[in-house]
């Protein structure tokens, strides 16, 4: 199928890509502000995004293009287990509602741009600040690389060979992110999200209608899993229940620790904007649940693919007319641009505020910060591109998995301080280190599977290694806090909470 160029699909694709490119550059003038004069302008879009802009922006960068490719792929490969993304993206919102407005208030009152800024503002510990900043940057890199994978899968389906198209797309993205900052993905997110909604709503109505209804879709998948055997099926095997629940919980707690999601939070206009979004953002989760079902539709449509990642493009190509397939592929590719841009901005903000300003040039001006961040965003994107071009794809997948585990270890440092000042920086830093080392070591030992096992009362239980590492992290942080409190009862670094 990928042997010849699909001209109709490709033309539609090029049209939409050109449209968002123009929008990306034009975004510099949208909600006008002096982009290069202040990092708040370039890196947070002026901290002025209201309910709808935030809804599109956070929806656009949390539910990434890679999600559209990878979730149906996992559901196609293993069945029910791949659905953990659904409980994950539901329970994340009560958490967002309860915690993120507090974080926003803290950041807003003190002019903080990044998570590491907030942590430094609370604990006055350069070490803890650097730990949070580096974790954020390292966890984001492979995530950007994954967006490229999502994009290249669709481009290949249209028959374009080689790396040139993906390089060209990414350079264009890098340039308008450089000039427009966060306004570019915020504006493009409108187009991306509306396109994805159209594609998915058409897919979940038209595809089952063509295949004979949802009953047939589920039955076809059930037959396929029965033939396949192993840990697959329409429901979970008993041994999969704890991994399923712990992956959902761990992922939900990690989701808003990432620089790209936090950038969306910090860029919003008010705490109330975030609260209302916690009520409205689940609309995307409904969409994600329906997207996941594409994996089962592939069985009913008797699609055969080389790798599960090809399931969604192959399904669209088989069931849709060429022009609509092109529209769907554009939606997915543009869906990669938004998160890739926000991720590089989030990483650039971290580098600027918590590495450059903290260690290289503490006296940097606001315009200087914006300049450093703009350059950094270019470097970050080129790094991600080199990653995909020169290293095996599997590295990006493995590192992204480890990245989720790592970013989760910044949770105590970032979130606990919003509710209590009991923990000490020394404890949080050591807990972070122990969580990262134990988690990485355990995941590595299991062949980079995200699961660890524990033996209790003769039975063995599997669970998400990141959540285990987080529990260990909190225990270490608490113990060290008690010990440090005994050694030096006087806190040197207490500030009033805002």
């Amino acid at each position: 199928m990928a042997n010849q160029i699909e001209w109709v699909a490709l033309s539609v694709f090029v049209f939409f890509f050109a449209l968002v490119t123009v929008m990306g550059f034009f975004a510099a003038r949208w909600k006008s502000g002096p982009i290069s004069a202040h990092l708040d302008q370039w890196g947070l879009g002026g901290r002025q995004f209201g309910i709808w802009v935030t809804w599109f922006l956070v929806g656009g960068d949390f539910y990434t293009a890679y999600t559209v490719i990878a979730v149906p792929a996992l559901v196609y490969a293993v069945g029910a287990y791949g659905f953990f993304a659904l409980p994950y993206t539901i329970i994340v919102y009560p958490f967002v509602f309860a915690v993120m407005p507090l974080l926003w208030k803290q950041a807003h009152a003190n002019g903080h741009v990044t998570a590491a800024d907030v942590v430094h503002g609370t604990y006055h510990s350069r070490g803890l600040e650097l730990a949070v900043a580096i974790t954020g940057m390292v966890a984001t890199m492979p995530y950007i690389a994954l967006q490229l994978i999502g994009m290249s899968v669709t481009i290949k389906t249209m028959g374009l060979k080689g790396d040139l198209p993906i390089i060209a797309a990414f350079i264009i993205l890098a340039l308008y992110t450089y000039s427009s900052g966060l306004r570019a993905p915020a504006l493009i997110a409108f187009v991306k999200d509306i396109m994805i909604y159209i594609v998915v709503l058409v897919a979940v109505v038209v595809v089952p209608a063509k295949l004979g209804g949802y009953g047939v879709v589920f039955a076809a998948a059930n037959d396929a899993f029965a033939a396949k055997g192993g840990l697959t099926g329409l429901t979970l095997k008993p041994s999969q229940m704890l991994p399923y629940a712990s992956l959902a919980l761990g992922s939900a707690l990690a989701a808003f620790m990432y620089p790209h999601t936090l950038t969306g939070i910090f860029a919003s206009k008010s705490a109330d904007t975030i609260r209302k979004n916690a009520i409205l953002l689940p609309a995307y989760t409904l969409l994600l649940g329906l997207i996941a079902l594409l994996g089962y539709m592939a069985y009913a449509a008797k699609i055969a693919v080389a790798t599960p990642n090809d399931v969604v493009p192959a399904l669209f190509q088989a069931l849709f007319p060429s022009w609509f397939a092109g529209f769907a592929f554009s939606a997915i590719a543009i869906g990669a641009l938004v998160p890739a841009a926000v991720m590089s901005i989030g990483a650039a903000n971290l580098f600027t505020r918590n590495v450059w300003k903290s260690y290289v040039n503490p006296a940097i001006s606001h315009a200087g910060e914006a300049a450093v961040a703009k350059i950094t965003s270019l470097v970050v994107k080129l790094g991600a591109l080199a990653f995909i071009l020169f290293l095996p794809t599997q590295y990006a997948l493995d590192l992204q998995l480890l990245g989720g585990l790592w970013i989760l270890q910044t949770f105590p440092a970032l979130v606990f301080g919003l509710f209590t000042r009991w923990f000490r920086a020394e404890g949080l830093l050591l807990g972070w280190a122990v969580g990262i080392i134990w988690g990485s070591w355990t995941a590595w030992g299991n062949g980079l599977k995200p699961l660890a096992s524990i033996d209790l009362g003769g039975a063995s239980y599997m669970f998400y290694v990141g959540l285990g590492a987080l529990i260990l992290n909190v225990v270490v942080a608490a113990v060290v806090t008690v010990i440090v409190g005994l050694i030096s009862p006087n806190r040197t670094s207490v500030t009033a909470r805002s």
Partner: protein
Amino acid sequence: MWMLLLVPFIGLLWVPFYNFTEPSLFGFPFFYWYQLAWVPISSLLIWLVYRSRTPDEAP
């Protein structure tokens, strides 16, 4: 009221509640429509908590 925010965690993280296929709805096995149903239910619960809280003094 804030306790309502914990309800989705219980409903979704205790997998034995929903790890079966019957009763199905519109062709969806129980496992699937149960979890999809939690999307609007969670939104509703968060909205109830939102309504009950005292608004910020600042914007």
